[in-house]
């Protein structure tokens, strides 16, 4: 080969100057993105470490297991158990999800599939407004409007009609798990509904039209074409709602009754993890008391992480089965 040709090839292999410059920019931009992405992980890590550091003095004498499985909460004797708070958090969040997901999805189906196009902005505006209300306002509304209504109307009614279930027994106090769950349901409804709306809007109209063309009724088209397509997204919407419900502090503490006990009845007063942290942290002075509150925060972190992972797996499983048997 001629030497000139070799030189030419070498030149050709090396990227031209201009291109290399762009690559430097690309590289540094890439590095920057990695840095920011990593930063969120670092923050989460630092939070866990700081919580763990604060929580450690609490476990010099008590074991972690007896803390999680115990339900005694006595700041004077410094004997602490987290179970009643874990229970309260899970029960109120479950009530909220059970109520919100069907309503939110039905709402989204109505708006996307059935309502005339002019209705959507009229309805979605107040929905977004609902999401912007500060939680303390929800709490006050709950305390002064919803709780009296629960005590005088809904709880006596549920007690009479469904009183054979242990869930609806006991004196109607107004405050309690049911009040906490209901206020959470109102608070997470905008999240669940508005994301479900966006999800259903991404369903290609060709899918819907194909179903209709094959002779499906409107309901069948929704059930067989739209909903399966949006399944993952709707699950994601429920998950975001759940995330908010688990961590909600102010509104829940104002209506849940704040008593660290475990009751089967939804009418009874309970307590939740974020509520007790907010209530007691400012005035906790001993290392053990501060420590157990930090430990409760870690547990809340753990629950959120666990539920998120389970939901991820669920989404993956659903997507796989969808891929195998296309609707």
């Amino acid at each position, binding site marked *: 080969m001629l030497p000139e040709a070799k030189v030419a090839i070498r030149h050709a292999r090396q990227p031209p100057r201009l291109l290399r410059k762009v690559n430097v920019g690309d590289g540094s931009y890439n590095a920057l993105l990695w840095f920011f992405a990593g930063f969120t992980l670092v923050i989460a890590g630092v939070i866990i470490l700081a919580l763990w550091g604060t929580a450690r003095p609490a476990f010099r004498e008590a074991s972690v297991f007896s803390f999680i499985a115990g339900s005694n909460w006595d700041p004077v004797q410094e004997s602490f158990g987290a179970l009643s708070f874990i229970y309260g958090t899970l029960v109120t969040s479950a009530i909220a999800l059970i109520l919100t997901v069907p309503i939110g999805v039905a709402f989204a189906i109505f708006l996307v599939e059935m309502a005339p196009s002019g209705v959507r902005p009229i309805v979605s505006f107040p929905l977004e407004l609902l999401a912007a209300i500060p939680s303390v306002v929800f709490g006050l509304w709950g305390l002064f409007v919803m709780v009296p209504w629960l005590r005088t109307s809904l709880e006596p009614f549920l007690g009479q009609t469904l009183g054979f279930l242990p869930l609806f027994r006991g004196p109607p*106090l107004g405050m309690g798990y049911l009040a906490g769950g209901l206020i959470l349901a109102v608070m997470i409804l905008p999240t669940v509904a508005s994301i479900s709306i966006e999800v259903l809007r991404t369903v290609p109209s060709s899918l819907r039209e194909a179903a209709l063309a094959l002779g499906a009724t409107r309901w069948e088209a929704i059930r067989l074409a739209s909903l399966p397509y949006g399944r993952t997204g709707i699950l994601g919407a429920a998950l975001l709602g759940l995330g908010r419900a688990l961590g909600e502090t102010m509104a829940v503490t104002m209506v849940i009754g*704040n008593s660290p006990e475990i009751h089967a009845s939804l009418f009874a007063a309970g307590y939740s993890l974020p509520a007790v942290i907010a*209530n007691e942290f400012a005035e906790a002075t001993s290392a053990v008391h501060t420590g157990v509150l930090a430990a409760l925060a870690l547990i809340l972190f753990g629950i959120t992480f666990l539920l998120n992972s389970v939901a991820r797996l669920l989404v993956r499983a659903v997507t796989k089965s969808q891929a195998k048997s296309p609707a």
Partner: protein
Amino acid sequence: MLCLALGGAALAADSLLITGAGATFPFPLYSKWFNEYNKLHPDLKFNYQSIGSGGGIKQITEGTVEFGASDPPMTDEELAKAPDVVHIPTVLGSVVIIQNVPGLTKLKLSPSTLSGIYLGKITKWNDPALVAENPGAKLPADAILVAHRSDGSGTTAIFTDYLAKVSPEWQKTVGAGKSVKWPVGIGGKGNEGVTGVVKQTPDAIGYVELAYANQNKLEPAALKNKSGAYVMPTIASTTEAASDAVIPDDFRVSVTNSASKGAYPIAGFTYLLVRKDQKDPAKGNALIQFLWWATHDGQKLAAPLDYAPLPNPVVKKVEVKVKTLTVQGKPVNVAGS
């Protein structure tokens, strides 16, 4: 921190900034004081964060503020971490019992009845103990719904301190503190939360601060004090609680269940916490002058805001205490001395 540092630097040129943190209960009075004192001394500004008594104790212990504020005095354990912290009582507050029994006014309670209700021993409004104390009152045969504070608070500390003094059983099973394990009842967050529960629920009983009850026109119950008289919570009867008390030199004392004749039994001091020796000459001097002013001229501003001023014997003791405060080891010449 950066903001504080920048703010401090900007202000340092023409004025002095003294930072403090702590109790929420005296916050309305303290902000009034800071405001009025600033009018007298325009070069001096206060920055007070009402983050709670626990936070106030933490911050003065760590030295991040010039003064802390707390409703209950520091415990021995807390004081061991900062032995040079001095307690200066500023005003008194009291805890009042409110109830919502339809048609019931002018409720009277003795210590044993009140502790019985909060222990869950007295569960009905027509309990013989309540009937005997309130002859002629309309007491229904309904269950008592007990409400208490769910957040850690000085109000709860004073209330449970009183119950522990008057009831051996309370002392044994519950004890006293800012947060306790309540035998019965449901918790409301803050004074407004407890008031919310009591107002919304027929047959409920709860406790709130006197100032809060006065401002919201809640009718309090009269309590039987140590000398046997039923006393309504007022500014005067709250001040009275500390007038006969034996006050130790460090002021760390509970004045609940006072033996004074006209004293309301559930009352307590609220304190400012300062270091005995001030390191910064300008700020230290200004802070000590302010303490003198607050416990003298400042006392006149207390009653209009529903805080009980210190009784005279206590003011005299505070004077002695303030004079022992030093700036870089040297005593300060306070106004009026």
